[in-house]
């Protein structure tokens, strides 16, 4: 072996080691702040589900010359862990980040992760549904998010199945069937009888969601964020209403294969539809069922299930421009465009009065005037205070307990005990 080859070998090995070390070191530090006033070449927007921002973003690029990258995640369950990772490591977050209500609440106790939008955008506090605007604020007064959509409630129902079971099919008559939850249950029993024992609604957790978000008082937390899940009358009310519907339920867990398949197979005839759910119903039911669905009002008045805000993470290098982009995406005109594109319901007062919004009809749902239906129910929404870990209590304590009761694994008392016990651990923060 010659010296030269040996030397080359040594050099190669050294080079490999240096690259490896260098590669690791490079992960260390790269947050070089841009000079003040420097215009960003690109802004990143993170959303989940469908926000309908594709065309709006193109317009923004044209107007400002700043490129926008839209990063879309299909499901919130996938979106949240990614976002948590960005915040925990201080890297990777988009400049504009969509926050669903549950997530927003969870992040509020650590509001420092988010830029305060107050000094960055003009004062829009009078332009949105007041309660929606207030929810975007952290306890320390910091404005974390600008309001996007709201999940006003309605009932989606299958006209063909209703007709076969001898129930009315016209949407006003259907709404008249259930002025309250008792009426809804009676309609369900009637359907069951008329259809030869088929289930009426998808699950009792859908019912509990519907009841809870009608704003009948504090849910799992009081206004001071003390956990009151076991004593709250509003929770007890939702619990009692939901458990009373077990006899008309298809016991199909939301998002499960039984659930998504059930839309096509008609294993249930009705479900609760916040505005954003319309797209999911039509997608699960498929083109073959077009025109068979319709939209009626929800028993006991409007309610709010879900809805989002746009926030700017503190780690963004261009908080000022990011805030401007969020401002643009949530203004009246943009909210109407987004609604027409993908269905998120506006929260901007001007957008809610817009003719293009009010006059909108949904072809898939038998041309139901969804703009009018949801627009009217938005006005009736009562603000519900959701505590920091509302989502965790709902998903990991209330809904499992309801499902355990629904499937007969636990009786009512035992299921309630399971809920109150889990609510304490899940709700602690």
């Amino acid at each position, binding site marked *: 072996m010659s010296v*030269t080859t040996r030397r080359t070998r040594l050099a190669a090995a050294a080079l490999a080691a240096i690259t490896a070390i260098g590669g690791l070191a490079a992960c260390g530090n790269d947050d070089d702040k841009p000079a003040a006033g420097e215009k960003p070449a690109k802004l990143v927007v993170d959303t989940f589900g469908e926000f309908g921002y594709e065309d709006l973003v193109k317009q923004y690029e044209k107007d400002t010359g700043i490129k926008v990258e839209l990063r879309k995640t299909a499901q919130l369950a996938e979106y949240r862990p990614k976002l948590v990772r960005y915040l925990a490591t201080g890297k990777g977050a988009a400049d504009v980040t969509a926050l669903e209500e549950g997530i927003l609440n969870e992040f509020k106790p650590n509001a420092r992760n988010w830029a305060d939008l107050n000094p960055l955008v003009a004062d829009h506090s009078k332009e949105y549904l007041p309660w929606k605007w207030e929810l975007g604020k952290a306890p320390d007064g910091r404005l974390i998010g600008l309001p996007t959509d709201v999940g006003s409630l309605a009932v989606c129902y299958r006209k063909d199945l209703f007709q076969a079971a001898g129930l009315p099919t016209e949407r006003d008559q259907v709404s008249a069937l259930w002025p309250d939850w008792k009426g809804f249950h009676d309609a369900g029993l009637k359907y069951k009888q008329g259809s030869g024992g088929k289930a009426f609604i998808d699950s009792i957790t859908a019912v509990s969601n519907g009841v809870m978000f009608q704003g009948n008082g504090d849910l799992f937390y009081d206004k001071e964020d003390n956990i009151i899940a076991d004593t709250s009358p509003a929770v007890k009310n939702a619990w009692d209403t939901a458990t009373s519907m077990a006899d008309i339920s298809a016991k199909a867990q939301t998002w499960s294969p039984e659930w998504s398949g059930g839309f096509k197979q008609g294993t249930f005839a009705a479900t609760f539809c916040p505005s954003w759910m319309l797209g999911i119903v039509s997608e699960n039911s498929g083109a073959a069922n077009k025109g068979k669905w319709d939209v009626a009002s929800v028993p006991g008045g409007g309610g709010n299930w879900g809805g989002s805000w746009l926030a700017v993470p503190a780690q963004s290098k261009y908080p000022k421009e990011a805030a401007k982009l969020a401002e643009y995406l949530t203004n009246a005109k943009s909210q109407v465009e987004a609604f027409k594109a993908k269905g998120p319901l506006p929260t901007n007062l001007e957008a809610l009065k817009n003719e293009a919004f009010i006059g909108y009809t949904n072809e898939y749902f038998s041309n139901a005037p969804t703009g009018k239906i949801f627009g009217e129910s938005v006005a009736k929404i009562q603000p519900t205070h959701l505590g920091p870990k509302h989502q965790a209590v709902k998903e990991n304590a209330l809904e499992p307990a309801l499902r355990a009761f629904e499937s007969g694994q636990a009786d009512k008392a035992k299921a309630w005990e399971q809920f109150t016990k889990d609510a304490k651990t899940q709700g602690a923060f």
Partner: protein
Amino acid sequence: MSLSATTAPPSPAAPPSPDLPSRQRRGRLLNHLDVKYSPYLYIAPFFLIFGAFGLYPMVRTAWMSLHDWDMIGEHSFIGFDNYTRLFSDEYFWNALVNTFGIFALSTIPQLLLALFLANLLNRTFLRAKTFFRMAIFMPNVVSVAAVAIVFGMLFQREFGLFNWLLGLVGVDPVDWDGQRWSSWFAISSMVNWRWTGYNTLILLAGMQAIPKDLYEAAEIDGAGPWRQFWQITLPMLKPTFTFVVILSTIGGMQLFTEPLLFANGNILGGSQREFQTLAMYMYEMGISNLNTAGYGAAVAWAIFMIIVVVSLFNFLLVRRSAK
């Protein structure tokens, strides 16, 4: 060292030049460094990568487990409180029972089946051996998520194949994810389907290493195939079998994807945590719940300890019983 300056030949490629002696000295030095240190450089990448992605996370997790740690907020040192909390945590024990239950249901039948299949494939009279050996490994190539999704569909309550088959013989549909036994059964069937072939191949490799003359001698002595299996194959297979058992133990204790997808992505694993495994509980505490990351880290270390103990136990068990 044998490579001294006098034995090193001058480089034939080096052109003659006036400063040859100093070049030679430099060459000698490099040569010396090369021999002494370059082996370390060659193995360095592994240790660097292991340090970054193996050791560092472990140490960091241990450090986190001693804190009350919020993923996106504050953390404060609390000593071993997280570990003492584990002992009185009902859901931790529930996850432990589930993990062991599914582990037993998947590992024991799986290894017996693998042993049986390996013995079959080891027979000399079998035609198209390579085809069968490859075929048996196929399930392991399929992505675990795909397996879990397909099995999840088969085990559905309403439209699932298994309930349909049960209906044909007049059995009521089973709510597979509603009870402990049924959910454990469903999850272990995924694990069994995926890993039986893998273990078969490892056992087969072990069987092939057993000297053929042992069997020949046994045959001359009048031992049938069954006797040969018990008296030659099994004892000689002991080291391989121990390896397979430990591998399965590690895999079984870390079971995560199958039960998670079986629960439609719900980290609780059933409405009453019927099939939440330890790994799922770790994820729930460490990542899903933002403010209990320290406790999640303690669960992670508990899993590590349990794997060590169970592996050791299985190792001793297999060694003894195979004697």
